[in-house]
């Protein structure tokens, strides 16, 4: 076996600095991790390291020079190198870096995804992207539901069945109508967010719907039948005699369909409205109305 001086390629009287420099040069050349495919590198690196272990320590170097220890004087511990793990599953792909081959093959090349390798060695299938759309509908459409055609930005159309009672902001999912899948993966979904436009008459309140209906003084005092619009068409409603402004009538089952298969209610708030122009006859009557002078609604 070669002497440590021969192994490092230095003279017997080399300085410690020369020895270190020689060792560094050889270590860089033979380190197994810098030569992952060279099985001989490990043995060379081991003998270089063993030689350096003797010569770097002036004490041991002197012992060797006096013949007190031989070139095997410093036992090298068995060790493993990173190259022994780098290509197994040991590191779980954490150190994978395909930068060296990412440009192999054009994007449409059969092998490009193999070399770009960002998804790992096995080609993964991936679900297509979900595409998001918005659809504006009227409040009555929201109440009734039914089929609706959505025109997509690309010009294609989607047939959509709006569930009766759909809420503002509710998202309808059309499975498989989104972006195409990759490598045979399933297509994504189309997600359609419903925007219910404000209505001139109706205000939604959960499953219920509210509406304000003007009535005349005569209707308020004497009562009578009036027409009230509902989501499903006008209905006839009786205003009781002696009705104050703000009185709320409930039309049972005339609200939105709810999740339990029933319907909410419609609440009709009555509001007394006077004629647009002052009516001398009405003024005359009010002056002569004795009860009216004594009644103060602000006093309990």
């Amino acid at each position, binding site marked *: 076996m070669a002497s440590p001086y021969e192994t490092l390629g230095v003279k017997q009287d080399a300085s410690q600095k020369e020895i270190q420099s020689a060792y560094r040069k050889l*270590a860089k050349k033979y*380190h197994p991790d810098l030569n*992952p495919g060279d099985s001989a590198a490990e043995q060379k690196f081991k003998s270089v390291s063993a030689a350096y272990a003797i010569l770097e320590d002036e004490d041991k170097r002197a012992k060797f020079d006096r013949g007190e220890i031989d070139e095997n004087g410093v036992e090298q511990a068995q060790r493993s190198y*990173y190259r022994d793990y780098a290509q197994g599953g*040991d590191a779980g792909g954490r150190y994978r870096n395909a*930068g060296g081959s990412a440009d192999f093959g054009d994007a449409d090349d059969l092998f490009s995804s193999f070399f770009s390798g960002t998804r790992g060695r096995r080609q993964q299938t991936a679900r297509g992207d979900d595409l998001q759309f918005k659809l504006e509908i009227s409040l009555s459409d929201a109440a009734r539901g039914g089929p609706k055609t959505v025109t997509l930005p690309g010009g294609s159309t989607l047939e959509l069945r709006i569930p009766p009672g759909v809420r503002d902001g509710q998202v309808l999912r059309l499975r498989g109508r989104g972006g195409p899948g990759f490598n045979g993966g399933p297509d994504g979904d189309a997600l359609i967010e419903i925007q219910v436009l404000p209505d001139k008459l109706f205000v939604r309140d959960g499953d219920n719907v509210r509406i304000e209906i003007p009535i005349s003084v005569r209707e308020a005092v004497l009562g009578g039948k009036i027409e009230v619009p509902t989501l499903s068409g006008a209905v006839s409603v009786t205003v009781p005699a002696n009705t104050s402004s703000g009185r709320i009538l409930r039309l049972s089952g005339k609200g939105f369909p709810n999740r339990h298969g029933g319907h909410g209610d419609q609440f009709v708030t009555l509001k007394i409205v006077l004629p647009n122009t002052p009516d001398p006859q009405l003024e005359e009557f009010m002056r002569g109305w004795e009860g009216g002078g004594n009644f103060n609604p602000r006093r309990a």
Partner: protein
Amino acid sequence: MNDIEFCRVLEIETATLNLWVEERWIIPGGDHGMLYYGDADLARGRLILDLLKNMGVNDAGVDVVVDLVDQLHTLREQMRSVMDAIRQQDVTVQRSLRRALDAM
């Protein structure tokens, strides 16, 4: 093993390991709650120590080396897969690939 055991085996300070992890020379497995270090990380740590201590490579040099080492192993792995795939082909396909390589 956890970070404390890792540092004990390599005889390094935890601050040193933190720096290595920050530089992504070492990428522990697991999530933030429970990081763990395996034999591959340990062997990688020994390579980093060899570079820093025995070969006189500075931090910037280590950064370059580990990056190239990772690329090299990934290329080796891809090359091995290509070779495996070629071996699975019909012998006439293998021969024609060999001829094409010889002609390069």
